[in-house]
Each structure stands twice: as C-alpha cells, then as structure tokens.
C-alpha cells in the first residue's frame, strides 16, 4: 500500500500551485464571464493569487474550499461588491460578454443590475414582501405602471417558488417570513431585476435542510435562464446543483472540473483531501 501511495502522490505533485497552477478545465469555449490574472489585496494582505476562471453561459459554477480560501472574495469581484470595501484592491481582467467590467466608464450600479447577488444571511429589507420584490424594478424604472409592477412581482415570486406561500400576505413585512422563505424572497428580489448572472454567497448556510433543498431545486431551475455562480461550504450542495466545481485553496484556484469528476476523481491532491475530509 505505501508503495502505491507514494507513487500516486508523486504523480500529483507535478501540478504546481504556485504559478497559476490550476488543474482541470478553468477555461471553457462559450463563457459568460472570463476572468484572468485576478489578484485581490486587502490592505497588505493578498487574498487571491492569479486566478484564471471562466463562467459558462447558463451553467451553475460552484466554488468550494476551506474558510478564508478566497472563494467569496472572488465571487464578490464579479459584481464589484468589493468596491464597497475601501481597503480592497482588485486587479486583473474581468469580462462579462467580452466587456471589461472594471473599465473606467463601467458603472458598478449598472453592472449590479446585470449581475445580481444573493447573500449568506437572508437580508430582506424591512418593508413589505411586495416592496422587497418591487425594489429593484422601481429603482431602475423597469415598469411603467402599477399593473406591470404587480405582474413583475408576481412572476418573480412564482419563479422563486414563493408565490403560493405568500400570495395573500404580499403587504406583510418580509422580515416576518421564515429563514428559507426570506432567502427565496431575496432570490425573487434579485431575479425581479432580470439579471444575466446570479451570484450566490453561501445562500443556504443559515437554513434548515428542507429550506436548503427547496433553494437547491430553485437554483437548478433558474440555471436554465441564468448563469449562476455559487459559493458554498456544503460539498454535497455543490455536487447536487452545479455542473462545474472550482476548488480554491489559500487564495489560489487549485482545480476546476466537471462536478462529477471532481467528486469521484479529483485530479489534485488538495482537492481530494478537502472533499474527502482529510487533513490538508
């Protein structure tokens, strides 16, 4: 056994993580997002080291990795949420449909209407369910009259699988819903703006398994229409919902591959250690 072991580790050590050493398939043919040479610094500390990664059209890309590996930071670069953190410095090429999203003339507000985000903790506004969903549409002036807005709110809630549960309580506070419902409300609020990409930052980590299952189901449904990038701590979740999985480790992108191959036969020893629950 030991002989075989050493043999395998030797095999795997040929992948060098130090220099953009991502194994697998980080780049794909028909990307929605392309990111190259992404470095992120928090003050003096570098959080992400030279990540090259594509997100495909209408795919669900899952990002996994231990805490502090940079997966959330990377996700938040994609709609420039990191701009709100003053000490955070992002460098690299980010292109959405070939368009540089960090260009001088690119408006982060416009970008965020194209790239929506759902956060870890359900964070509905302290307003009614209706107003929560209508918020983005009102903000961007997407509808011209009340009837259209009503329609949009209803459609978004239906698509988020929440309408049946709340249709009689649209004017009750969104904060009065259960955790899972709140998170679906946040998803409804995000898709009401009709973004092209939805980023999800550990969307189910605060939810019970049933609420989690509902949201996972929703993600799979949404992936037909939207490009979804999700950061998750639950490997089972990544395995269930995503078509590709990216493994981050200490700010580096270690491996990207089709989800089933990552979970049955990861190429990199670090990935294997992480997903099988071994000491890194």
């Amino acid at each position, binding site marked *: *056994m030991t002989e075989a072991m050493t043999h395998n580790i030797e095999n795997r050590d040929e992948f060098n993580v130090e220099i953009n050493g991502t194994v697998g398939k980080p780049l794909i043919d028909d990307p929605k997002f392309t990111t190259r040479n992404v470095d992120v610094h928090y003050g003096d500390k570098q959080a992400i080291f030279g990540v090259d990664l594509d997100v495909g059209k209408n795919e669900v890309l899952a990002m996994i990795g231990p805490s502090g590996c940079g997966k959330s930071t990377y996700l938040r670069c994609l709609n420039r949420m990191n701009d709100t953190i003053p000490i955070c410095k992002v460098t690299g090429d980010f292109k959405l449909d070939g368009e540089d999203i960090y260009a001088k003339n690119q408006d982060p507000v416009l970008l965020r209407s194209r790239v929506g985000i759902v956060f870890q903790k359900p964070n509905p506004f302290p307003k009614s369910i209706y107003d929560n969903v209508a918020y983005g549409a009102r903000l961007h002036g997407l509808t011209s009259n009340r009837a259209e807005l009503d329609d949009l709110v209803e459609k978004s809630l239906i698509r988020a699988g929440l309408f049946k549960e709340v249709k009689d309580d649209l004017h009750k506070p969104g904060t009065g819903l259960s955790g899972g419902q709140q998170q679906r409300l946040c998803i409804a609020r995000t898709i009401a703006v009709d973004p092209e990409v939805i980023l999800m930052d550990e969307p189910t980590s605060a939810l019970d398994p049933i609420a989690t299952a509902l949201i996972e189901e929703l993600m799979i449904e949404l992936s037909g229409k939207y490009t979804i990038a999700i950061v998750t701590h639950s490997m089972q979740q990544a395995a269930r919902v995503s078509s590709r999985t990216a493994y981050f480790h200490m700010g580096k992108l270690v491996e990207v591959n089709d989800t089933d191959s990552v*979970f049955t036969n990861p190429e990199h020893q670090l990935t294997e250690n992480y997903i*099988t629950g071994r000491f890194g």
Partner: protein
Amino acid sequence: MELGQHISQRYNAELEDIRNKVMTMGGLVEKQTSEAIKALLDRDGELANEVASSDDVINQMEVDIDEECTRVIALRQPTAGDLRLVIAVVKVITDLERIGDEAAKIAHYAKKLAKKETVTGMHAELSHLSQLIMSMLQDSLDAFARLDSEQAIKILSQDIKLHKEFNVISRLSITHMMEDQRNIKQALQVNWCARSLERIGAHSQNLCEYVIYLVNGKDIRHTNLEHVRRKYFPEV
C-alpha cells in the same frame, strides 16, 4: 490512495475495517480455491467434501461487508477516493463470493472425480490451468492490497493465456469424449472444472479492473485493454 488522515478518526477506522475485512475474505477465498484445486488434482475426496460445504463463512462475510459499506455511504457520504474505495469493495466482494461459489463447484466435481479410478489424461493440463488461475487470483488480491494498478493491468493482459489454457482442456475433453463414449461423463466433469477455473480467472480479472478504478478513477470495463494500457500505463 490513503485511508488515514481523515479529520474524523472514526471514519478512518471504518474504512480501514472494511478494507481489512475484504482482505480477510480474499484470504479465505484464496484458501478455498487452492484447497478445491488441491482436492481436484490430488483426488482427495475428503478435502473436497470439506471445501464444498464451507463457503457459508464467505457468504456471510459478503453480507457483512455489504452492510458496512451501505452504512458508510449513508453516514459519511464518501467522495473521491473514499467513494471509489467503497464502490470498489462492494463490487470486489461480489466477485470474491462468486469465486468462492466456483471453488465449491470445483470441490463438488472433485468429489465425484475422486471416486473414479483415473482422471483420463488431463491431469497435467488441469494442473497447468490451476497454477495460472491461482497466480492470477493471488496477484489480483495482492494488487488490491497494495493498490497497485500496474500489477493489475499486467494481470489483465493474461487474458489470452487464460483462454488458451482453457481451450486446450476443452479440446482434450472433446477428444476424450469422441474416443470413448464412456468417458463422456468424466470428461464433462473435467470440462466443468476447467470452466469454473476459467470463471475464477475472469473474476480475478474483474478484481483488477476495480483496482484500476479505485486507484486511477478510470472505469476500464468493456474497453479496449491495449488502448487503456497505452494511455494510462505506457511504461508497463
């Protein structure tokens, strides 16, 4: 492939336990097979009797290991290497159990053949085939124990040799049957023994396929062996 190093110590122990049990079962099957062959070649009716009636232990072990694998899948949701280990084990024990069955069959015929005065002239060939089968079985189990996929692919390439040996016995038995119709029963029994031996060889080769799946994550069943060998094991 390493089993230890999990954050959960109990998980380590569970996987180690499964693997150890498989090795024990493999040892038992190996012993069973070698004794069946010994009974056949030495015309030892007593030993044959013993072997034919003792595959209960192996059957029970299959059930136990199966159960344990189910539990690990349900409780630990193994991934990657761990998942492949559990899946491979589930398959390995099925094949081991079949080998046990074939050994029992051989013992059964050995019992009958032992009552006869002579085994008509095929002793040498049977002995030859048996040696090949035993080495294949031992080597496969060894490859599994050491997770040695190179050895596994070597065993897989013994395919042709196995078929040749089996065909020799087949042709000989047909010749015997044609020479004297009274030989038919005995020749058939010999042929069946050869058939069982061949099956054991085939199951051993299955074990090797699982070893390759387990170590390299490649399912090479129903593929071109030469192609696989060239692609993944160029140095073998």
